[in-house]
């Protein structure tokens, strides 16, 4: 088996490609044939939206670099880079509506940012002071990261079933009808639970988009070990429409996600989107990509950088240099602020071990909490 991704995991170039692409790698607006049905969705976004897309991609890239630095300096236990996947995430996140619910995997930092979480809450989790970090219902319905791969796909499907049961979707009102988007990856697509989620979604016709970021690598294993067929084609076997997009094209990500979320909200059932992208960084800061992939391969994807592509496009539209410079300054300020706040993170109080294990009283928890207090108090100067 090839040690690098097969041809069909890389979006084919040219208009005849089955891949939905709006922008070519050099930033030219040149929709592929497959993009035709999605073009009307681009009419929904204004120039201000373009600026937001760009700003968020640049800011999260800077945040990502800062977080990796914090890990290297011992301030985080681990960091999970999203470098390279910004377009897939930003485009799809902006396609959601306020009433939608988002179930992330654990690399969707900018999706959370767009939905309204404080990204320092992600750092709190990776610094080891919390297992979660935010209240989804108060932060844009952005649910907690899930570390057991693909487990969240079923939670998302169940949640979408609930939307159906309580009549919160498919009423004909696009302002209030709800849908779910769930993020997972090429590695997680091999988990049985990912398949079960597709089975349930198809059976109950849930209002749901499966957003599969194929970033080519599951830690050290190439996507060709996960699948011998393009991942978007798997959806068809479940009776769900599947679409492959150029995941480094923020406009394609926005338009395709907008369409399928619209369909989901209006009762036309679930869909799967495979965003073909690349994990430019390591899987996590505990990983060493030089042991399993070539510098040439990575370089070939850096040449398709989603931020450079969109910037070139915006420059072609005549965006002023001052805006681009301002975004760079804003991103640097953002990262500096994150660094300052990350260093101020403090650990939780010890009783949080016992808090919220159960909703209702539990004798073992009560006994052990009391024991820990008395144990701590037994030391000279104990302060339990």
């Amino acid at each position: 088996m090839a040690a690098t991704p097969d041809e069909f995991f890389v979006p084919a170039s040219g208009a005849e490609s089955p891949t939905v692409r709006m922008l070519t790698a050099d930033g030219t607006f040149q929709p592929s044939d497959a993009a035709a049905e999605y073009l009307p969705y681009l009419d929904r976004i204004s120039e201000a939206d373009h600026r937001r897309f760009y700003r968020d991609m640049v800011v999260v890239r800077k945040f990502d670099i800062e977080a990796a630095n914090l890990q290297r300096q011992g301030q985080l236990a681990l960091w999970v880079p999203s470098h390279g996947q910004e377009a897939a995430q930003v485009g799809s996140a902006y396609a959601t509506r306020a009433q939608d619910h988002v179930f992330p995997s654990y690399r969707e930092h900018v999706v959370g940012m767009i939905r309204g979480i404080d990204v320092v809450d992600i750092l709190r989790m990776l610094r080891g002071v919390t297992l979660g970090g935010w209240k989804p219902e108060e932060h844009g319905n952005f649910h907690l990261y899930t570390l057991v791969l693909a487990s969240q796909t079923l939670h998302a499907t169940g949640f979408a079933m609930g939307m159906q049961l309580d009549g919160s979707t498919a009423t004909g009102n696009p302002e209030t009808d709800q849908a779910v988007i769930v993020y997972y990856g090429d590695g997680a697509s091999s988990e049985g639970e990912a398949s079960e989620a597709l089975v349930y979604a198809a059976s109950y016709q849930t209002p749901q988009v499966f957003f599969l970021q194929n970033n080519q690598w599951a830690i050290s294993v190439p996507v060709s070990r996960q699948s011998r067929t393009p991942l978007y084609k798997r959806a068809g076997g479940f009776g769900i429409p599947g679409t492959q997009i150029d995941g480094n094209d923020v406009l394609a990500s926005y338009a395709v996600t907008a369409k399928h979320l619209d369909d989901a909200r209006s009762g036309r059932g679930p869909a799967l989107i495979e965003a073909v992208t690349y994990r430019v960084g390591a899987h996590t800061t505990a990983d060493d990509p030089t042991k399993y992939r070539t510098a040439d391969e990575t370089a070939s994807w850096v040449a398709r950088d989603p931020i450079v592509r969109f910037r070139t496009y915006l420059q072609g539209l005549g965006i002023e240099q001052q805006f681009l410079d301002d975004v760079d300054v804003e991103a640097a300020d953002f990262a500096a602020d994150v660094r300052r706040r990350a260093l101020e993170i403090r650990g939780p109080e010890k009783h949080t071990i016992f808090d919220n294990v159960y909703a209702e009283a539990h004798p073992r928890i009560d006994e052990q909490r009391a024991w820990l207090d008395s144990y701590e108090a037994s030391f000279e100067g104990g302060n339990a």
Partner: protein
Amino acid sequence: MSRTAASAPADTTIADPAIIPATDASAATAAPASASLPLAKALNAGLRQAMKENSKVVLMGEDIGPLGGVFRVTEGLHAEFGDKRVLDTPLAEAGIVGTAIGLALRGYRPVCEIQFDGFVFPGFNQITTQLARMRNRHEGSVSMPVVIRIPYGGHIGSIEHHQESPEAYFAHTPGLRVVSPSNPHDAYWMLQEAIRSDDPVIFFEPKSRYWPKGEVHFGESGTPLHASRVVRAGTDVTVVGHGAMVSVLLQAAEIAEAEGISLEVVDLRSISPIDYGPILGSVEKTGRLVVAQEASGFVSVGSEIAATVTEKAFYTLQAPVLRVSGFDAPFPAAAVETYFLPSPDRVLEAVDRALSY
């Protein structure tokens, strides 16, 4: 002590467990204050009551719709409540539990049926790494009122993976509650209480006890969900068990009584948490304890009770706490299951050993 025929099946009907007298029959409705029901029908009545009381209660599982489940526990509920309350799911246990978690996040109170004990394991990841921790990792901002019903245990002569007792796996997992009724009255009430709980409850149903009848009092439970209870008073040796084993213990107590030995029988009812009050109160009297279970003994509920009672009642004990368990082998072919499952005689053998100290 003499012995009855080995491996007697557990067919003794448990004495009426209700402590609370029947409610006032003068109520306007003509509903009876009590009825003699098989445990399966009591569960069915409990589900119906819970579904009437709370529209967020939804049932999920394989074959639970028009068929009423392979044990008919949900019989008639699909016809009564419809597709949106009784969901015949695809055949995938992780899917059942995982989507139930999503429904609970949405504000529903799913009651999942796992068809047989041995089939829960495809859903084990969702139960242990997700369901059990969901509230904790959300720092209390969500609850997980999910009930997972699992018919469990032997005595039915069935094929592989249909007679298991996997309760220790779940009792070991923080965040879960684990209970098992032994009789129809408790089944009716404990299931409703489990559904009302804001914590996930693994609800083990002793399938060999599905069909013997017992009196169900509809007025009041009489015992909280997580309380254990003395179901037969005695003075010489305390015997503790849960689910179908309670019937075996009551049989053993009758045999022992005829031979002049008085057993006090405690129905555990709740496996996590364990209510040690009645157990320790009984051991205070008897000084001797035998714990019986169908599950393999190694690292089991019986092990936990033995350790805790030894710790809390060390100076009261006149003998070591003894366990009577399934062997540490896979549940065997049905033809030899009676050797594997603790019988009244195996319980009495342990009682004799306890008395020999």
